[in-house]
């Protein structure tokens, strides 16, 4: 059973969002890293990139395949987790402790469209 964390927002495409003021800290879930297997590359956006909710912002790649990442909220990238450039396996080790990027939200009401932990666990149980 994949791990989840209380108090986060979850997307259908298996990203998590932790809200810190007006900033959304975004990563992939334990379910997602488990489904992908050992990760060998994380394709991240650049600081100051403008992202739109629901659109692709990067990818995580295993040996076998690339899986696109989708931005759960709109806004501007303020920081990326540079540690992942050399150590993508950190996402396999702990997907919730290792975030991918931080986004200054332009419309925090978009969070309401995301799932809470109970709804996300229910969705994963059906996959």
């Amino acid at each position, binding site marked *: 059973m994949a791990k989840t964390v209380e108090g986060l927002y979850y997307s259908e495409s298996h990203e998590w969002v932790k809200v810190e003021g007006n900033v959304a800290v975004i990563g992939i879930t334990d379910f997602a890293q488990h489904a992908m*297997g*050992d990760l*060998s*590359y994380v*394709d991240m956006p650049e600081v100051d990139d403008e992202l739109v909710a629901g659109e*692709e912002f*990067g*990818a995580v*790649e*295993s*040996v*076998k*395949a*690339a899986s*696109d990442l989708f931005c759960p909220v709109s806004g501007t990238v303020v920081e990326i987790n540079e540690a992942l*450039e050399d150590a993508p396996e950190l996402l396999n080790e702990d997907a919730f402790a290792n975030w991918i990027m931080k986004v200054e939200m332009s419309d925090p009401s978009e969070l309401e469209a995301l799932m809470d932990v109970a709804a996300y666990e229910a969705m994963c149980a059906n996959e």
Partner: protein
Amino acid sequence: MIMEENLLKTCLYDKHVALGALMSPFGGFIMPIQYTNITDEHNAVRHRAGMFDVSHMGEIFVSGPDAEKYVNHVFSNNIEGMEDGKILYGMMLNHEGGTVDDLLVYKEFEPDHYLLVVNASNIAKDYDWLCAQTEGYDVKVVNASDSWGQIALQGPEAEKYAVGTLGLAPAAELGFYTYYEAEHKGERMIVSRTGYTGEDGFEIYASHEAINEMWDILLDAGVVPCGLGCRDTLRFEAGLPLYGHELADDITPLEAGLGMFAKVKDKSDFIGRDALVAQKEAGLTRKSVGIELQDKAIPRAGYPVEVDGVQVGVVTTGYRSISTDRSVCVALVDKAYTELGTKVEIRIRKKVFPGIVTKRRFYETNYKK
């Protein structure tokens, strides 16, 4: 979309499920992709020994008074005067020079008898193609794919396990691309020094029952079960083509850089020869090359190769190479950009990454001479 219930199972299917393999469709079969993870299985073959269920491969037997002439007519390599127990790699081509399939031809230990080992995804197509070319030749073509199982035992310790664990003593004497035949509990068994990994190793063909027995013995002895995931990373590093990627109905062996297996000079006749001669005279317009990226981004099949923002080719296979930890790919590229050292770019999602044209082999192979 192929529905899972229509997929074929190999004779080792139950073993894969019991081992907890990740199963996925491949070439019409439901096959193991990995048992643990691709990297560990890849490294087991490079450094020790691994085994693959390759029972999905097709076995087509050709025999009859005209067998040699007939096989030489449909096959791009030259089998004339081939000695018993020898194996040749080559292609069957269509009349346009495109590749129907790439395959191995085994010269059996009986006059006028040949075994053709073909790709799983092409068994039906190949058999139909072969039957359609028999007019004027006194030959019998038999598709026996369903009655043979096959294990590929690969890696530097493969000989130790073949001889010591399975008791296949004659395997030690085999040279690369030769085979011997024996009886296993009253049924035929074929052991060849061949493979698809760039390492030394053997491919063992036998009855379903015998293959199940040997699988268990090798597993107990510590040979690592390996899925198709690492079979692809291994063959890719060794510069070996995969049908549907580097070769296809509309890709000629010359374009794929495999002209040495199409004997245009030695042979006056084989299907596709005229098209290859014409292509040589006119000059190739595209060719398969290796490309290495400086970045860690991973080029994958289907990604565009570009120069100055204009597409000049397409990636056919790409990986972060497990053995060399470099992002590399094979791509089919316009001839003007195929010189070693040429600078190109690969479009990966929204960005382009600079790369340099290299050889198609990314790993030094360790075949037994």
